[in-house]
C-alpha cells in the first residue's frame, strides 16, 4: 500500500513536471506570437497614416463601408465579455482564419503598390513586403502552437477573397487600396487582441504577463 502510494506520487511528480514543461513551452510560443502580431498591427497603422497623407478630397465619401471587407463574414467577438467567453480553441482558430484570409489580398496589394499614384509608393511597397513577411512568420508560429494545443484547435474557416483588381482609374485604385488597408488594419487588431487574451490565459502562474 505504501509502495503503491509512493509510486503514484512519483507518477504525479513526473506528470506535473511534464505538464509544467509543456506549459512553459506554450507560454513562450504565445509570447512570441503576440509580439509578432503587435508588430504586424503597428506596420499596418503606419501604412494607413502614409496613405491618409495623400487622400483625394472626395475619397471619404467614395470609400466603401467597412462592412464591405471580405472578412466581415467571419463572426468574431464584438466586445470584452464576448471575447472572454470564447474558448481558447476558437480564439486561435479565429486568429488563424483571419491571417490566412489576408494572404491573397496582400499579394494583390504588393503587386499594385509600385504603380500606385502616391508620392511615397516606394515606402508603401517595402512596408507591404514587410507585412507579408511578418504575416508568414506569424502563421508558421500559430501552426506550431495548434500542434501543441491539440486537434480541436486546428479548424480554420476559409474566407475567399474575390476582389480581382483595384480598378481602372487612378482615383479608384487609390481608394480601393486604402480601403483594403483599412480592412487589414482592423483585422490585424483583432488578431492581436485575441492572441493577447490567449497569452494571458496560458500563463496562469505569471499574472504580470497579462
Amino acid at each position, binding site marked *: 500500500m505504501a509502495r503503491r502510494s509512493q509510486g503514484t506520487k512519483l507518477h504525479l511528480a513526473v506528470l506535473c513536471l511534464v505538464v509544467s514543461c509543456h506549459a512553459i513551452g506554450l507560454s513562450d510560443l504565445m509570447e512570441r506570437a503576440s509580439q509578432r502580431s*503587435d508588430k504586424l*498591427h*503597428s506596420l499596418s*497603422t503606419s501604412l494607413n497614416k502614409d496613405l491618409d497623407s495623400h487622400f483625394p478630397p472626395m475619397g471619404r465619401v467614395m470609400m466603401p*463601408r*467597412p*462592412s464591405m471587407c471580405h472578412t466581415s463574414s467571419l463572426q*468574431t467577438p*464584438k*466586445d*470584452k*465579455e464576448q*471575447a*472572454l467567453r470564447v474558448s481558447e480553441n476558437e480564439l486561435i482558430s479565429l486568429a488563424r482564419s483571419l491571417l490566412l484570409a489576408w494572404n491573397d489580398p496582400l499579394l494583390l496589394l504588393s503587386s499594385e503598390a509600385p504603380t500606385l499614384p502616391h508620392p511615397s509608393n516606394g515606402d508603401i511597397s517595402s512596408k507591404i513586403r514587410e507585412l507579408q513577411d511578418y504575416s508568414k512568420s506569424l502563421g508558421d508560429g500559430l501552426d506550431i502552437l495548434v500542434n501543441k494545443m491539440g486537434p480541436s484547435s486546428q479548424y480554420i474557416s476559409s474566407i475567399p477573397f474575390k476582389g480581382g483588381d483595384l480598378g481602372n482609374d487612378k482615383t479608384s485604385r487609390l481608394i480601393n487600396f486604402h480601403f483594403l488597408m483599412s480592412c487589414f488594419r*482592423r483585422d490585424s*487588431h*483583432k488578431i*492581436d*487582441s485575441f492572441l*493577447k*487574451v*490567449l*497569452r*494571458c*490565459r496560458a500563463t496562469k502562474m505569471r*499574472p*504580470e*504577463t*497579462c
Partner: protein
Amino acid sequence: MWGEVGGALVLLLLLSEVLDCIGISPPGKPVLINCRSPEKETFTCRWDPGFDGGLPTTHHLYYQKEDSDGMYECPDYQAAGSNSCFFNKSHTSIWVNYNITVVAINSLGSTVSDPLEVDVMYIVQPNAPENVTVSVVETEESPHLLVKWEPPHEADTRSGWITLTYQLRVKRQNKKEGEWEEYASGKQTQLIIYSLHPGDVYMVQLRCKLDHSLWSEWSTTTHTEVPDYILKERSIWIVITVFSAFILLLVTFTLAMKRKYVKHCLLPPVPGPKISGLDTQLLKSGRSEDILSSLINQGFPPTIATKDQQVDYLLVFDSEQVTPDLQNGQTRTKNIDHGRYDHSLLMEANNKEVKVGGRETVEQGYSEGLESTFWKTKSLSHPCPQKKPFNNVTEMPKQAPVSSKYRSLSHHKDLLDSLARHLDYRETVVKSQSNCDDKHLSSQNIVTPLKAIGYVEVQRWKKSIGLQVLVPKMDKSQEDYSTVSVVENENVVLLKRETVPLNCTSCKLRGNQSEKCLQQKPCKPHMTVPAKEGVYIGSNGYVEPVTISHTL
C-alpha cells in the same frame, strides 16, 4: 391665392427679423469634439453645443452602428458630464463603426452636427497612472530613487484584454533650463533612478498607454528631495586623497634629491674581478712592455721573493768537453728573475752528443707555500753497467734551505745566458758523467719547471735516435715532468706536459735501463693545466717556448 402665399412669406420674414432683433434663433450647429474610451470597454463622446439661439436648447445624440440598422439615441447623457454621451459596456462594441450625430433642438428649430465615424479601437486613451510614490533609498554605494505606481483604476489588467505600458520622466527642480529625462518602463509598475544630486529636489511624472492606443496625460508631479549627507561622506574621502597625494609628492621629491643614494641602495655596483698583481690601469694604458713586465710579476711563480738568490748553474757540455772542474760541482750562480713559464726546457739537440745521465736526479721538494723550493739531487741509476759510480756533480744540502738554486741547461755558454735572460725560470740541470765507454756519455740536462714542482730528468739519449729526453714520472702528483713527444727537426724538441695528480707516489722511468723509482717528498698540490709544450731552439740559439701554460 398668390396673395396669401406672398403675405405668409412676408409675415415670416418680418417675424424672423423681429426675432433677430430680439435675439433668439434656432440653435447653432453643435460640433462633436471627440469620443474616448479609457479602457476599451466603454466610451464617451463630447460635443460643443454651439450657439443656443437664445432659447433653451436640448441636444440629442444619435448613433448608427454599421452592422445593424436603426438610429439609436445616447443611453446616458449624465454620467460623463454635460454635453457628453456615455456608452456603457453593453452599448459598446469594438471593431464596429459608429456613425454619431448630435442634434440641437430649441423651440425655433433644430440643427444637426456633422457626423462622426468612430471605431472604438481607434479612440482608446487611458487615464494617467495613479498612486505615484517616490522614495529615496539610501545605500552605501549609490543612493537611488525608487518610483512606484499603480495602473489607472478602471483598467482591467488581469484578463489580457488590455496590456499597459508605462513611461516615466524626471527633472531636477534646481536646474531651471533642465529638460525632462524620459525612461520607458514596459509593463512594470516600478522603476529605479540612479545618479542623484544630493540636496536637489526631483520631479517625477508618469503616463501609460494601452497596446496601440494613444498615450495618456502625464500624471501629477511628485516632488522628492534628496538629502545632503552623501556630500559629507565624499568630503572626507577628498581630504584623505589630498593628504595622501601630498605625502606622495613629498616622498617623490625626497627620492629625486637623493637619486644617487637610492640608486646605490637599489642597484649596488657590481664588484670587478680582483686579480692580484694585475694592474688594470696599466693594461688600459696599453704599453706592451709594461704589461709584460707586470705580467711577469714578482710573486709568481711562488718562490723566494728576493732577487738575491744564489743560482747555481749546472752546465751541460758535450761529452768531450766535460771539464773536471765541473765535477766539483762548480756551479754558476746567476740571478734569474722569476718567470711565469713553467714548462720544461730541454737542451738543444743539434745532433750532438749530449751526455745524459747521472747518478743522481734532482729532486725537488716543496715547502709550504710556494715561496721556496729546493732541490735535491738524487742518485740515478746508471744505465751503464761498467761505469763507475759517479758522484753527483752538484749536491744540495738535504735540508732544503729557502734559497733556491738555479740550474740552467745550456749547451753553450751563450745559450745559457740567453736562457737565463729569456726564460726566467728555474731549472735544475744535473750534470753527471758516466764512465760508459760508449757514446752514452752523460750529459745531464735536467730541466726543471719553473715552479720546481717536478723535475725533468734526461735519462739517456741515443745518438742514432737523437736526443731523447725522458722525464720520469715520479708519481702522479708530480706535475712538472715533461715527456718528449717528438723531436721534430734539428732544432725542436716537443715536450709533453702532463698533469699530475696531487699525491706524489711512485714514479716511472722510461727507458731501457733499470728503473728506479725515485722517491720524492710529498708534493704539494698544484694545479696545472695540461698543455702540449715545446721548445723551439731557434737558429740564433734562443730557446723559445712554443706554448705557455700557467700553473696555479
